[in-house]
Every structure is written in structure tokens, then in C-alpha cells.
């Protein structure tokens, strides 16, 4: 597998930690803060996935749609 499989564990870790922080902040009574944390984590993961999707589309273009 040429690709960095570590990113999978990174995403899973980010998700678990964000869920934890969300729970703790909710217990402290700071609801809106908890939502901001979730949104931030979501943005980070979405950025990673967007980079990878760009890579995927470039690969498909190079493999299938060459000379265009």
C-alpha cells in the first residue's frame, strides 16, 4: 500500500477526541463552545479528505483520460 494508512488512524483519533471534548464541554455547560470544537474538527478532516480526493481525480485523469 503506497499510501499513508496512518491518516486513517488520524481521522479516527480526531473523531474520538472531538467526541470526548464535546462531551466534557457539554457537561461544563458550554454548549456553543462544544459545537465550535466539533465544527473545527470536521473542517480539519474535511480538508484532509479534499486533498486526497484531488489526488484521486488527478490519478484517474492520468490513467484513463490521458492525451486530453
Amino acid at each position, binding site marked *: *500500500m*503506497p*499510501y499513508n*494508512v496512518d*491518516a*486513517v*488512524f488520524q*481521522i*479516527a483519533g*480526531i*473523531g*474520538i477526541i*472531538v*467526541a470526548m471534548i*464535546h462531551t466534557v464541554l457539554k457537561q461544563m455547560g458550554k454548549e456553543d463552545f462544544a459545537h465550535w470544537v*466539533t465544527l473545527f*474538527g*470536521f473542517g480539519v*478532516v*474535511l480538508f*484532509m*479528505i479534499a486533498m*486526497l*480526493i484531488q*489526488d*484521486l*481525480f488527478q*490519478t*484517474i*485523469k*492520468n*490513467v*484513463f*483520460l*490521458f*492525451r*486530453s
Partner: protein
Amino acid sequence: MEIIQVVGIGIIVTFLVLVLKEQKPVFAFLLATFTGIIIFIALAGKIAEVIRVLEHLATQAHVNNLFFETILKIVGIAYIAEFGAQVTRDAGQGSIASKIEMAGKLLIMVMAIPIITVIIETIVQILPA
């Protein structure tokens, strides 16, 4: 033994998604998408080798380059559309997935029009007037 790596990462991600889905379903969905992309990119290199061989054979057999290129593009469109539709369907948006598939079919039909034109022109030439 690429297959063992792919199956291994699939099983690991399945467990991670199961754990994560209870807490944050969005992250579970993103993780599944990520894994799909990783597996696809890992396989794209293999497909490229096969296609290079096919291209070599087609050049040796003097096949019209237009046909070969069109067929490759159609296969590429099919892969991209299938991938997008699967991701969207995983997120629970079946209707958008259907639209993506419809767009893929339409674009494939548009790309196939030159070939169909050639075939029909050939048939018309063969037929006695």
C-alpha cells in the same frame, strides 16, 4: 500480496467506524470515504499498467486511436461516477446518488456518439441504395 493489505485495512476501518459511529456519525462517514479513496488509489497503479499494455496492443494492431481513447474515457467516467454515487449513497442521499449515476450514463452516451456515427455510416454504405 496487495489483497491482504486491502482486506486488512478494510477490516480495521470497519472496527474504527463501528466505534466512531456511536459518538460522531459524520466522522465515521468521512473515515469510510477516506478508506475508499485510499483503496482506489492503491489500485489505480495496477489499472494503469494493464491499460499501457492494451494501448501497446492497439497500436500494433492499427486500431483507430479514436475508438481506444473513447473506450478508456468511458471506463474512467464509469469509475468516477460509481465512486461518487457510492459515497453519496453511504451518506444516505440516495436521490443524489441516482442523479450522479444518471449524469454518468448521459456523459458516456455523449462520448459514444462518434463511434455510433461511424458504425451507422458504415452500415449505410454497405446497404444497397
